[in-house]
């Protein structure tokens, strides 16, 4: 059975890199980068995941089909996120004239007022 056998040193190197990246992401968490907080943390996580996928899971040495399947899952994850966000991110754009929000406005916080406390004057 022809599986790829990586040298032990590769695994140690990857493990070392993962540890370094973990340290980086933890330290970065204590620096306020403003809007960049989320992208930076996410990029580091994606980088770490990529290392695991490529080396620990041997995708680097696997068939095109495996790579395709791997890519497909992330593609459809992005479809789920991206197309759902087309709704949420564009809800604020549309406000009908007259101050009242149109069909798709942002959700607000509020009670479902179980039993409307009578405030009738």
């Amino acid at each position: 059975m022809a599986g790829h056998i990586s040298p032990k040193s590769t695994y140690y190197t990857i493990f070392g890199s993962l540890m370094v990246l973990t340290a980086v992401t933890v330290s970065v968490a204590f620096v306020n980068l403003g809007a960049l907080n989320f992208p930076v943390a996410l990029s580091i996580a994606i980088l770490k995941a990529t290392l695991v996928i490529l080396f620990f899971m041997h995708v680097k040495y696997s068939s095109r089909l495996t790579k395709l399947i791997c890519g497909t899952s992330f593609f459809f994850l992005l479809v789920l996120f991206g197309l759902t966000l087309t709704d949420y991110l564009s809800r604020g754009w549309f406000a009908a004239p007259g101050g009242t929000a149109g069909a798709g406005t942002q959700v607000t916080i509020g009670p479902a007022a179980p039993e409307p406390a009578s405030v009738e004057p």
Partner: protein
Amino acid sequence: MTTTVLPRVNYLNVRHTLASWLFTKDHKRIGLMYLVVVTAAFALGGVFAAGVRIELTTPEGDFVSADTYNRLFTMHGVAMVFFVLIPAVPAILGNFVLPLMIGAKDVAFPKINLLSWYVFVIGFVFTLAAMAFGGVDTGWTFYTPYSTQFSNSSVMLTGIGIFITGFSSILTGLNFMVTIHRMRAPGMTWFRMPLFVWALYATSIVQILGTPVIAITVGMLALERALGFGIFDPRLGGDPVLFQHLFWFYSHPAVYIMILPPMGVISEVIACFSRKPVFGYSFVAFSSLAIAIFGFLVWAHHLFVAGISPYSAMVFSFLSFAVAIPSAVKTFNWTATLYKGAIWWQAPMIWVFGFLGLFLVGGLTGLFLASLGLDVHLHDTYFVVAHFHYIMVGGAIMGYFSGLHYWWPKMTGKMYSNSAATFAAVLVFVGFNLTFFPQFILGYLGMPRRYHVYAEEFQVLNVMSTAGASLLGVGYTLIASYLIHSVFRGRAAGDNPWGATGLEWETQSPPIPENFDETPIVTGGAYEYTKRGAKVA
């Protein structure tokens, strides 16, 4: 063909004990086991539908109470969607013929195949338990916050049932995909595969990518209902519409789980009974993949009036129109396949004619609902009900029966009465149109769906609909009776009663346990009727 004695050993008579069925790893037996459970679910769902239609004969709520009515249509939806439409063609027909079609001894993971049947049955048992404990009244869509905070019915049990059943669907899809990749006989290249195999492959994509999302969504709903977690709860600032997004991310593609395999069946049957290759083979094959992938990009067309952003609605409307194209391409190709064929009017082909007529109406009325301006009026009315019944019953169930009639001789080795089958097809076609066409008109008139009592002016159309539903009931009972009759009294069908191409017809009927005496070696395309030496019509 003259004797009623089945040929030597076959997958049916090789063992007779109950255990030999319950622990079988033979894909053919598992297919039949699905047939039994799915048929039971179909009968159950039919009974619920009958209750709904009887109630709707009069505008008043005089047959059942409002609560009962709500449970009836909910359970009709749950039984039909999750336990009939989704498993019908892939798990029954697909299981039976997929390995035969590609020249394999079995699916890639026979044990997992059996497991998925058990998972399916366990899910069904949970759902039955929910029905026994008073049923569920949320609608099969389980919209929050009604399902999480207000409903007093067995939402949890049903949810668990659907969650479990989802894994059955995932496992079947996984199994089929690996089977198609890894188990094809020598010479069975991708473009020699029958189109039904392509359709099953496309279906597997949807099952694998979509089903986990409904499972986790139902899981979140359960956490919220049972433990008070707040994910969709508007009182905490959660968004009920998020549930709808996640629900339809699966449930819209699920429509393609239901319709793609029957489309594949149609390609097989049309080619066989026209005695020629399917017109535009590669376009039909790739349109299956296109539908599977585009199908994931259109879900929010169920949400046009649910409070999503109008700009987002625009994007989804556009994509919904785009997904209509591959379906149209398939229809045109099927029509073109008939051109200069030698069309043999046998029962499976009559079902195909019925499918074409009904799927056409179902597909085209989809354009009405994809149109933003029109959907505002039509959403949640009977127009929608009529539309998806045309797709799911007119399309998927007609396709399923076409396939069942087509492969029945292979599955049982017996032939049913062709005239009875033809009559049943015509009866179902007429009954179906009488049931559901009036509902388009009701929908445009503005009758909302899920109404227990309704305004008087809608009555005539509703009576027509109920009358049609009775015809449907008769038609389906007829099918069951002559098919069962054929098992005991039918004449032996022979290995290839239709004179069809395809590896499944090269082995005996019913097939031997491991399908083929020798691993077949494929040398040509799927539908090469001319090579068989008969003269061109």
